[in-house]
């Protein structure tokens, strides 16, 4: 599998390098759908310029990256393009390895289930064959690398985070790094924990001491690394200024620059009296799906991770298409759910149409002056609804497949005719 992956990486790097050289690079790096005040490259350069003038980058309101990023780019300034291409390639390779690992696990579980004779006979066609699964990691990598959104984000030099699963310690560290960068990956702590528990065959049972032991160990590692990172940032810049500038900014949404999310127009038109209330509601909305989803999907942590990443990408305060591309990269892993998806055609049409309409309506509002902000806002709404439908469709398909695996594929009603399944 190494050769196709290498070829894929080369193609991806070529596309990105070619785009960097053209004037499109500048154009793309200014687009609001691709960059947000949190991760725009222009703002990183501005932060570095302020640092050169001996002014703290956080004394103004332009720079909202974490201190580690400043110092990273302080040294890598000239190699910025290569850094981002490398980051993308590393992410792709990491995803590839992760999905390969996951596939092995799934296959193993399936084998056990087959041997234990737990699956009804007619479900055999639902079982995934090795051949089909062979190509999935490659497809995942391909999806990630060749997704136009990812390319565009790379070209715009966004600084999105990524996760790697491996050993518990490593995963805790990387999760802490991702949480440090923006708060939302905090919710990924739970699925990561569940995944590791599954790998170590510790059942998720509240009464078992081994569960608590492992959970506490993991949480300790996670919080410890997070604390180390925050203290390191403090020592890098010598002040706690970055806490309100980074985390306060993400949580309190003072900057209303238009983006593909729901927050900007909502808070631009909000009555002052209710601003705090709705801010809390919207931020809680991102976090509170963690617990119910974890309870429902405790046997399937990777799907849980996918759901969480998707929900974060839809409901976070400053989303960009880079976040979108990350969860879309996982879609090939759930190829086998295709037969149970109900709205996939509609959703994909809407997503494509919205992607095309975003730049058009932006131009009409900002440059031509013949549309107003409502047009762009409408497309934002549609885009979010399409994403929500996509995510809930996959969830439905996943649950349905699980139901069939336990109850049989061709179900019959009491009188023997073909039955329909509904959610009740």
């Amino acid at each position, binding site marked *: 599998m190494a050769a196709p992956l290498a070829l894929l990486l080369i193609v991806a790097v070529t596309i990105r390098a070619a785009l960097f050289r053209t004037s499109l690079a500048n154009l793309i790096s*200014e687009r*609001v759908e691709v960059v947000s005040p949190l991760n725009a490259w*222009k703002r990183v*350069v*501005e932060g*570095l310029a*302020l640092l050169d*003038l001996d*002014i703290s980058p956080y*004394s*103004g*309101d*332009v720079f909202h990256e974490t201190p580690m990023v400043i110092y990273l780019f302080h040294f890598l300034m000239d190699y910025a393009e290569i850094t981002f291409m490398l980051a993308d390639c590393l992410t792709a390779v990491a995803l590839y390895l992760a999905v390969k690992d996951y596939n092995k696990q799934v296959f193993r579980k399936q084998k056990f289930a087959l041997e234990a004779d737990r699956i009804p006979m007619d479900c055999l066609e639902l079982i995934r064959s090795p051949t089909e699964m062979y190509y999935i990691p490659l497809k995942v990598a391909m999806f990630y690398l060749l997704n136009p959104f990812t390319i565009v984000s790379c070209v715009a030099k966004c600084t999105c985070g990524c996760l790697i699963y491996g050993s518990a310690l490593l995963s805790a560290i990387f999760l802490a790094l991702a949480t440090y960068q923006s708060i939302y990956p905090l919710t990924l702590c739970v699925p990561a924990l569940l995944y590791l528990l599954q790998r170590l065959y510790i059942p998720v049972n509240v009464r078992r001491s081994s569960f608590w032991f492992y959970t506490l160990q993991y949480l300790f590692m996670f919080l410890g690394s997070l604390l180390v990172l925050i203290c390191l940032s403090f020592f890098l810049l010598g002040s706690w200024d970055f806490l309100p500038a980074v985390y306060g900014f993400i949580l309190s949404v*003072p*900057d*209303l*620059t*238009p983006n593909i999310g*729901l927050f*900007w*127009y*909502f*808070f*631009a*038109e*909000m*009555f*002052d009296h209710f601003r705090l209330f*709705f801010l809390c509601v*919207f931020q809680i*909305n991102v976090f509170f*799906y963690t617990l*119910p*989803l974890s309870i*429902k999907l405790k046997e399937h942590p990777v799907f849980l991770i996918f759901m969480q990443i998707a929900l974060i990408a*839809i*409901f976070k305060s400053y989303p960009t298409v880079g976040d979108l591309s990350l969860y879309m990269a996982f879609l090939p892993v759930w190829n086998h759910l295709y037969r149970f998806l109900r709205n996939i055609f509609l959703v994909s049409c809407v997503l494509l149409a919205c992607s095309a309409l975003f730049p058009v309506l932006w131009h009409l*509002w*900002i*440059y031509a*002056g013949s549309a*107003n*902000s*409502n047009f762009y*806002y409408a497309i934002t*709404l549609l885009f*979010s609804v399409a994403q*929500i439908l996509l995510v*809930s469709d996959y*969830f*439905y398909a996943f*649950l349905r497949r699980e*139901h069939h695996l336990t109850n049989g594929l061709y179900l019959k*009603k009491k009188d023997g005719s073909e*039955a*329909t*399944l*509904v*959610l*009740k």
Partner: protein
Amino acid sequence: CARAPMYDFQEELVIRPLHSGDIYASFQFRTVWDADFMGDQKVSHYRLFPKSLGQVITKFSVRELHISFTQGYWRTMQWGQPYLPSPPGAELWVWFQDTVTDVDGTWKELTNVLSGIFCASLNFIDSTNTVQPSASFKPLGIGNVTDHSFLRYATLPREIVCTENLTPWKKLLPCGSKAGLSVLLKSEKLFHSTFHSQAVHVRPVCQDPQCRTTSMELRQTLNVVFDLHTSGQGKREWSLFKMFSRTLTEACPLASSSKVYVDVTDNPQVRPFELSPATPLLTQAVVLGDRRTYSVYDLTQQASFGSSRSLNMLLRWKAADGEMLRPLLHSERYVAGYGLQAGEIHTLIYNHHPYRAFPVLLLSAVPWYLRLYIHTLTVSSKGKDNRPSYIHYQPSKDRERPHLLEMLLQLPPNSVTEVTVEFERALLKWTEYTPDPNHGFYVGSSVISALVPSVVAMDTNSTLDRPLFSSFFPCKEEASYFMRVYTEPLLVNLPTPDFSMPYNVICLTCTVVAVGYGSLYNLLTRTFQVDEPSPGLAKRIANVIRRFRGVPLL
């Protein structure tokens, strides 16, 4: 016993015909009051010094106060340099004394009190348009203060000046508008002009050459430029009556000196205009780096008024004017770019001196909603990069303070220096827009302060009796004079949300969130079941009847 405080009041009017045919009149009223504001003695007896200002100065421990209200923009290339520059709108800068502990709180109170005194909306001055310059706006009075934390500068470019501002300003004069030069200040003519600026400057000055005692000086200045073509008739002729629809009848009795100067600097060949009534008094003064000749009318002499007991100067042009001396320092500013997302501010500074280079200090205060990117700052003269030797940049904080950029630039001789910086326009909350949001947002004028090399040796002796207009800016050296130039204010459009939509937006966005919540709730709380169709209506009724009868159901 304490010495009775001494007062001195002088008034003067300078009339300077401009090369474009317009005429420039500059009034200055100067009250010097020998009271020690900085001491502990409470000042309670006010004679010539206006009580409202005196109380403000003592209460807020003000060392220097400069406030100006201007309508119109001074066209340097057509009119030359003004005696007292001022930016369009309102400008206020104050040096507080070092006994003040909470400068920001005192500043807020001071602006509100001044807003009441001058009937202007200075209460709009808050932390979002106040800056603390680090190098410009050094004190114009005595004392070497170096701690710029006691200085505050704010400008309101949107402020309109009208009769309501002129009336309280006139009330501060000792003679009011009853006698002396202030009878000419009638609003219907003064506001029918191209440029109108009224200002109040309070500062401590030395009383004697050794500067053992200080006194408080109050200068009220009013600069006005009347336009040739809007005043009717077309032929080039100006008189006091044509300008102000009044004539002078007497000097202010409280004034120690009351003079009218008319700039009659001759052309080498022929005097361009004829001045009547003729006056034997001629004086020369060095002002703005040039030696000019003035005809003087001394209003304290009864002879000035002639037999009609009124003085109406008449200037009649016979020949065309010669070439105007090009002002040495001049600047322009504009916004480049298109669309509502980003833009660039370009500031052009012209040095017209043929062989001397001199440094200038550029101060720009840009509101927070135009996010400046300082890494895009470029300064170039004659096509080459020109690095400023001093940059002080304070980035803005959203809704708290504006950007402050101060630079010391060296201008090469006979060149244009261009300062460019990119910005991004922010989307504001719907309540933060003015009622006319599509008019745009004003960016206050940039200030360029410089010591310009002078053609003629400047007079550094401060105690000589000099006309007021030439003694406003302190002169420390002979070879150069201080000049301040203001650029145009900018008008920038920001993207606006739809103001009719708050309720709709809240409903629609909450609907989307609810769609997400609803689908996930359904999938989380419900399980798959085989759908047993419920029996039809007839069967259900039959079942109900059968239950009553005790018979097995269908």
